């Protein structure tokens, strides 16, 4: 499984696309947080917090994560290496989790440069260092939670098709539905179901963790979503095997 993980990460960086995806991510985030006027802009907000990043992330992940996950199975299917992979003495679960974990490592790599934003706030604070590190750490955990769910969805979608473009677009749409869709649905259905329906969505759970409040219910929600979609992926893989 370790080898599989390594191979997955290496192949991401072997292609130009990998760098491009991360570059675009960092560029857009940087522009929104430091240049464009708006709610996300840290400099004009006057507050010593990186809140903007955590508001922006669920949106920008909609593109970043499908771009990482789109090739997981789609690529293997297209080049015909999936059959080869399946003949190896590795369980389906190991294959799927290796791909998923590789995605999380890539996400971590993409997020590492954003620590510079935190440092900027740290340096510009009045007095310097006036940043709530606890809240920031909590919010970063939140980024991995929401990123994890997106990644699991992306992995699942990519197991359906051998076309990376389709995989990318469908993943982005499904992630969006999971992020916002349930909340929107909750506004049009009868009052008594509102609570439950909005609880299904990611946003409801992301809100508190992005402020630095870790609630076991939110963590369980994220973990169970991840496990669920990865399970669906293994079901898909098993089908290919037969």
């Amino acid at each position: 499984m370790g080898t599989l993980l390594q191979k997955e990460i290496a192949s991401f960086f072997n292609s130009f696309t990998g760098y491009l995806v991360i570059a675009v991510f960092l560029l857009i985030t940087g522009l929104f947080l430091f240049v464009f006027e708006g709610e996300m802009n840290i400099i004009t907000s006057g507050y010593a917090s990186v809140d903007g990043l955590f508001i922006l992330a669920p949106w920008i992940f909609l593109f970043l994560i499908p771009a990482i996950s789109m090739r997981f199975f789609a690529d293997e299917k297209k080049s015909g290496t999936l059959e080869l992979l399946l003949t190896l003495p590795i369980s389906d679960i190991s294959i799927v989790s290796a791909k998923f974990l590789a995605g999380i490592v890539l996400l971590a790599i993409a997020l590492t440069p954003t620590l510079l934003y935190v440092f900027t706030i740290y340096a510009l604070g009045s007095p310097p260092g006036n940043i709530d590190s606890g809240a920031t750490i909590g919010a970063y955990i939140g980024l991995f939670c929401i990123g994890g769910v997106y990644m699991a969805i992306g992995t699942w979608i990519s197991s359906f098709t051998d076309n990376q473009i389709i995989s990318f677009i469908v993943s982005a749409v499904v992630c969006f539905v999971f992020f916002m869709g349930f909340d929107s649905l909750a506004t049009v259905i009868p009052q008594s179901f509102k609570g439950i329906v909005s609880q299904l969505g990611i946003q409801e759970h992301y809100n508190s963790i992005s402020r630095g409040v870790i609630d076991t219910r939110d963590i369980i929600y994220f973990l169970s979503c991840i496990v669920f979609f990865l399970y669906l992926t293994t079901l898909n893989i098993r089908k290919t095997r037969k």
Partner: protein
Amino acid sequence: MALFKRTQHIIIAIAIVFAINWIASIQYGRLDLTEDNRYTLHASTVDFLENLQDTIRFSVYLHGDLPLSFNKMKREVNDMLNEYKRIGGAHVQILFIDPASLAIGKNSIQNTYKRLMQYGLKPYTIQEEDEQGKLVQRYIIPGIIVSTSEKYVPLNLLANALGNSSEEQIYNSLQQLEYLCIKSMKQLTVKKRKNIAFLTDHKELDFQQVFDATMLLMEQYNVDRITTQQLFDSITKYDVAILAKPLTAFSEAHKYIIDQFVMHGGNLIIAADNIGVNVDSLQRVSHTTAYPLQLNCSDLFFNFGIRIHNTILLDNQCASIPFNVSPLGSAPRFEPAPWYYYPLLKPLKQQPHAITHNIDVVKAEFASTLDTLEGNGTITKQVLLASSAYSRTIGVPNPVGFSILDNIPDKNFFNAYYLPVVVLLEGSYNSLYKNRPAPIEQNSIPPTFTPKFSSDSTKIIVISDGDIFKNEIEVRGNDTVPKPMHYYKYFAVDRRVYTGNKDFFLNSVNYVCGDEELLTVRSREMKIRLLNKTRVVQERKYWQIVNIGAPLILLILSAGIMMWIRKRKFGKTYVG
């Protein structure tokens, strides 16, 4: 068949996911990683929300097109209300309303604001540049209407929020948010308001002088201004009686009434100077004489366990006044000078108490000092506020005046330390008139009255200064306008806003009324986290370039290294 089996698996998986999340929702834990626990509600708030009977609706008008700094405020308000909803369930309703959306058809936006103002919300003026770069003014409503099916109270988020910038103001008001919310909810749900009486027949502070204090109390309590005889007529009606700077002597009958008020379960706040200083004459002449006041209350206070001394407190930690430093005959030039007669009181570190927790200094004016004595009953005594480590008392009669500013007092001048000025007494008292005849005429005794000679647990706060909750009064032509309690007329040289006085007063009243949970919520503190504005303006370009450029350069560099490694590994022929 395979498809059927797969569907079965998926359904089971969904069921398991729902089951796990359902179990998690029953038994859960919450960890607030913020340093000041800002997203954790106070235990008493949680308790209140859990026991909510009525349905409370929060209509938030801070919505729509808002300036950036207010967006944060809105987010935080939303977060906190959602937290309420999480605990209070269906008993809490939240509604965000954009005032602009209420202005349809004939109902112009101005009318909407007018209507909201009639409800008690205060609009906040913001200045913005429009597309042509012209400054335009518009209003937003940083307020909430908190309502039940019968009543409503306005909640102004920016009310009394002090600060240099709108960001600071917003932080300060967010700090108060939980308190304001819980206070409004209590106001709506309280079944019987407590009654508070200001006594008026010993030349106490008049209505204008305690205007701000009265207004503050009226948000939560019924406040009356009554005579001592009226207090006697309905001796159990009032929960708290306030003696605000009495100047004339108490008759034996009045002392008896106050004694009996306490015996019947009443609580007291006594703010009494034992010395008189004609402050107004100091406006005209350089010194005046401090004289002892004859309040005739020593035996009553003694019975409570308190003695107020005939002294004036001087403190090195004090407010400033403008002092003319130019030589005689030339144009006056004023500089701030320490006015030792206006000490800034602080709680003692060894004796912390909820009333004084997290409050700012409390300004007193010509205060006396006091001592605690044995008292008559089982009483616990606690010093709430005291002078600083460098203080001194002088006896009266004695001249007081600006001559004290002529020389800088040396270290030995302030020869006393931590002199108590405010004391809280709690416990059950025995009556001063236990084995004595009642000094009161038969015809003034109300028919329902029976004397009691010992009290249940009551609370008494004694302040040996009459001015702590007095507000200044500004004279504008023929009009007099009461200023807020935190305002000091020499602000221009003193540069301090005495929110401590207000907090201390409200906390005291809340405490003696038994509303302790309000003061623990009020004293909560949030750390202000702002960016250094001047640096942000000066170094904006630099940080923009660093934050966009550096990550990209890093990425290109690592890409280059990877390429190089790969080339070395696989030779030139490899094509990715």
